[in-house]
């Protein structure tokens, strides 16, 4: 076969190569590989497959260091989603995915299509999606850029909600932080979880020479061409101009695809199925072939298109949503069409599997692409960059809390608490998750608002728990510790809910890896994550890397979001953070410390980001989690909540006001010989507030003592709408719990509701209101 450039294709120049994000060395590699100059179309193919997004150029060597194996891991990294065994013949597929750059450009569609993509990754494994979580980062909701942030937040939340709600998958949890470092470059990570019988697991391979390859779902348009390379470049003024046609989500078609795909997979008429995600047809077809060790031969003119005059280049790279690539068994096309037809979907046979190992694209018979498949997928050069910490950060870390002078207002010990409860990063996220249908499919035992979401597994006494966590400020101040803590907190949140942590999907959101200071953050954070995942026995089954997250002010906080899934053996073990009955005993697990570094208190009260991230001892953490899970399983624990942003005082408040309409009072006393700020608001790790009945208190304390975990009785739960009271050596906080609740629940609504942006969003017009 000879490859003929198409008439009208631009000549391959150094500029063109550079515009495609390929270095001269990489281009040389391509020349050697082909033994000739690539066609324009081939150049596009390489640029997509060798982009950061598909090729993991700068992260692969680091990712290889992560633990990925355990007896319960059925599918590790490399597939559309990871899969773990959750017992009784059931398996859970889950994966997290970022849509940061699309959301920065068009928050509503960017977030919506992010959810769509991750759902497809899960159901193409044969699993029915049962839950979605989302991990979000925005700039500040107060101050100069608040207008822009409101616009992004409102659009992203509506995009996630409208999509998930329409498809009918409950959005059950997530996390959100507001910090100036994310201004102009918000983070939108979506995690999907699916359920299947073990034997229903299917992987996306193109096997069986001669098997037909079918394009299913929406017609291909010019949407998001080069989204993959777009996602691998910094956001600049130009990128606004270079912006491809925005991808628009069509959740209705997604719902049809979901039902049809599951039917197809169960039908046995197909051998493989994959989402046409980033780099659309190119990545899906090449990756399926590579996994099958086969080749593909595709006639591009057969691909159904939405617009006239689309070139092979455009069709191959289009990122039109709600499309799938299906490899059917030879001679079963009609059966496949019948199933799809029932769901009002079309399928076109666009090519077939070959044994040449080559990736071949034809246009009306003429070969426009012929590339050896294996190197195209796995031959992307990977780099281990040099990392060097930015000295500014080394210095920040050395800041010593004892230099801190209290503010005037802190004369009133309650002032800082109210300031923190009104801080959007800490405050209730109800404004957000009330826009998400969290109860559809009737499996949601614990929805948004507790440490982790809990979903029952019908037909068993089991349930699964899921959470996403990452404090980017910790990672910024100390990437290694930050990585450890992200994993430890996720596991702690699962344990607090009664679950045994099982596996991780991670989303590495970082800046430009070519900057030594950023690469340092990346490699150190991954080192921490790997270590914590090993000690806590939660292997990484997949994830996503999003680099070049920068704005004119520099890189975002390094944000390796950890999505974690755990298993609850018996539904009776499900535990939440909400205090139970009046008179229950409140017990603190773990040790209070003198740490203030990287705390929300420093930022919200003193406007400072400084100090070292809190110290963490994984062995202590492991002991704590093991003992807590035992206590929960033995039925002694009525509520459990770990301390996180805002420290002990905020955590205690969250337990008291978890039931918004009937907050309960609480009175505790802390004898620690520590200054009020670190004692009340420091973010020392490995601490959990639990409550139990007065009668069980001694047994609970004995249990933890026996397990070598520090535990002490600190107070009792009060009456509904009673007082919220914390007594320390130096300060007393004593306020009506309803006041606490009001501040906590109004913080975000009072910043969002009734503003023009609210309306723009409602109109789906999404316009930036300055």
């Amino acid at each position, binding site marked *: 076969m000879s490859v003929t450039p198409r008439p009208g294709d631009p000549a391959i120049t150094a500029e063109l190569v550079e515009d495609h994000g390929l270095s001269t060395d990489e281009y040389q590699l391509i020349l050697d590989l082909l033994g000739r100059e690539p066609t324009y179309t081939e150049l596009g193919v390489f640029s997509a497959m060798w982009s950061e997004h598909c090729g993991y150029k700068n992260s692969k060597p680091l990712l290889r260091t992560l633990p990925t194996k355990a007896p319960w891991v059925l599918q590790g990294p490399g597939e559309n989603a990871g899969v773990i065994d959750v017992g009784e013949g059931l398996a859970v597929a889950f994966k997290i995915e970022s849509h940061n750059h699309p959301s920065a450009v068009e928050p509503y569609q960017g977030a919506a299509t992010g959810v769509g993509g991750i759902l497809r990754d899960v159901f193409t494994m044969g699993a029915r999606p049962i839950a979605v979580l989302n991990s979000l980062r925005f700039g500040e909701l107060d101050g100069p850029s608040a207008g822009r942030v409101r616009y992004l937040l409102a659009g992203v939340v509506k995009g996630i909600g409208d999509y998930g709600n329409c498809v009918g998958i409950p959005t059950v949890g997530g996390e959100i932080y507001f910090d100036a470092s994310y201004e102009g470059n918000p983070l939108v990570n979506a995690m999907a979880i699916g359920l299947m019988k073990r034997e229903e697991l299917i992987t996306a391979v193109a096997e069986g020479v001669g098997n037909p390859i079918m394009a299913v779902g929406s017609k291909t348009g010019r949407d998001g061409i080069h989204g993959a390379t777009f996602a691998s470049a910094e956001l600049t003024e130009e990128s606004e101009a270079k912006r491809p046609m925005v991808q628009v989500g069509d959740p209705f078609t997604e719902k049809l695809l979901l039902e049809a795909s599951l039917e197809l997979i169960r039908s046995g008429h197909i051998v493989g199925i994959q989402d046409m995600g980033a780099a659309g047809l190119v990545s899906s077809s090449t990756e399926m072939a590579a996994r099958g060790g086969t080749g593909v031969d595709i006639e591009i003119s057969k691909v159904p298109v939405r617009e006239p005059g689309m070139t092979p280049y455009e069709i191959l790279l289009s990122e039109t949503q709600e499309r799938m690539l299906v490899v059917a068994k030879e001679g079963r096309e009609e059966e496949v069409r019948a199933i799809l037809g029932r769901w009002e979907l079309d399928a076109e046979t666009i090519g077939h599997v070959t044994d040449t190992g080559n990736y071949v694209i034809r246009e009306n018979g003429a070969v426009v692409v012929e590339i050896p498949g294996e190197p195209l997928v796995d031959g992307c050069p990977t780099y281990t960059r040099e990392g060097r910490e930015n000295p500014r950060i080394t210095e920040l870390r050395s800041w010593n809390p004892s230099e801190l002078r209290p503010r005037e207002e802190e004369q009133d010990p309650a002032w800082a608490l109210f300031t923190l409860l009104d801080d959007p990063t800490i405050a209730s996220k109800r404004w957000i998750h009330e826009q998400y249908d969290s109860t*559809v499919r009737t499996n949601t035992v614990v929805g948004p608002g507790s440490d982790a979401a809990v979903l029952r597994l019908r037909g068993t006494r089991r349930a699964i728990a899921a959470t996403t966590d990452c404090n980017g400020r910790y990672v910024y101040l100390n990437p290694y510790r930050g990585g450890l803590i992200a994993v430890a907190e996720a596991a702690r949140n699962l344990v607090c809910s009664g679950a045994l942590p099982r596996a991780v999907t991670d989303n590495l959101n970082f800046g430009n890896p070519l900057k030594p200071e950023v690469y340092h953050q990346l490699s150190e954070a991954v080192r921490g994550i790997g270590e914590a995942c090993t000690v806590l026995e939660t292997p990484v089954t997949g994830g996503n890397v999003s680099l070049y997250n920068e704005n004119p002010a520099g890189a975002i906080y390094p944000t390796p979001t950890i999505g974690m899934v755990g298993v609850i053996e018996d539904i009776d073990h499900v535990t939440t953070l909400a205090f139970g009955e009046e008179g229950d005993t409140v017990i603190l697990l773990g040790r209070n410390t003198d740490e203030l570094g990287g705390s929300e208190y420093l930022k919200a009260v003193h406007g400072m980001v400084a100090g070292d991230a809190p110290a963490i001892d994984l062995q202590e953490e492991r002991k704590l989690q093991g003992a807590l899970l035992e206590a929960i399983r033995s039925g002694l624990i009525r509520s459990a909540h770990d301390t996180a942003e805002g420290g002990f005082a905020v955590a205690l408040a969250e337990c008291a006001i978890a039931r918004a309409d009937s907050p309960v009072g609480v009175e505790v006393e802390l004898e620690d010989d520590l200054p009020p700020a670190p004692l009340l608001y420091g973010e020392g790790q490995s601490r959990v507030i639990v409550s139990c009945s007065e009668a069980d208190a001694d047994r609970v304390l004995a249990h933890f003592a026996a397990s070598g975990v520090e535990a002490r009785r600190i107070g009792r739960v009060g009456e509904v709408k009673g007082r919220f009271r914390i007594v320390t050596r130096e300060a007393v906080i004593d306020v009506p719990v309803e006041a606490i609740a009001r501040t906590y629940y109004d913080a975000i609504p009072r910043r969002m509701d009734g503003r023009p942006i609210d309306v723009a969003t409602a109109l789906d017009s999404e316009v930036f209101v300055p």
Partner: protein
Amino acid sequence: MKIGVVTFPGSNCDYDCYKAAREVLEAETVYLWHGDHDLKGVDALFLPGGFSYGDYLRAGSIASLSPIMNEVRAFADAGGLVVGICNGFQILCEAGMLPGALIRNRSLKFSSKVVHLRVQQSVAPFTSAYEVGQVLRVPIAHGEGCYIAPDEELDLLEAEGGVIFRYCEADGRITEAANPNGSARNIAGIINSGRNVLGMMPHPERAVDELLGSVDGIGLFRSLAEHLVASPSSS
């Protein structure tokens, strides 16, 4: 007793309805396909929640024209019991089988939470298992649940005892604050003048299991079953 749940393209609570009917009533329950003309001899019909055809025009408008809706209408005209929940309610209004219309929530936002409902009357076939004035805790999850109709229509509806559920406070008071979507007169659920077609925005099928926080939806299924047993359906 045989219960049917209609699946339209984009229905997503059909499974929940099916499960609820199965588990609460232990009744034979079957899915019915929007494109079919066959009700498989069911005694009662559920039009479930979801986003039929994406609700891309008006919620429920396209589904209300599905082939099976002819049979549904005939079934109702013959006295058959039809329950439309959320999107199902919207479809019934769009089909003209219930008065009024459901428009965008006053807040313009999708609203997903547990609300309180006041039972306006305890009558067969849908609410005999409840007390008048009983307060139920039931989830809502909708963006277009604001019930409206011309005033005279509303007066007529009230006069006929067509209002079955109203949004209320935990203690049963009917207040503006308790109205999650701006519905006229806090209306959450209505029946037709024939008293055999019910439409409601809240999701009783999501409130049939202690584990998920409420069992207040069970009464609706029980009432329906009692009625069917007492007077086997004509269809």
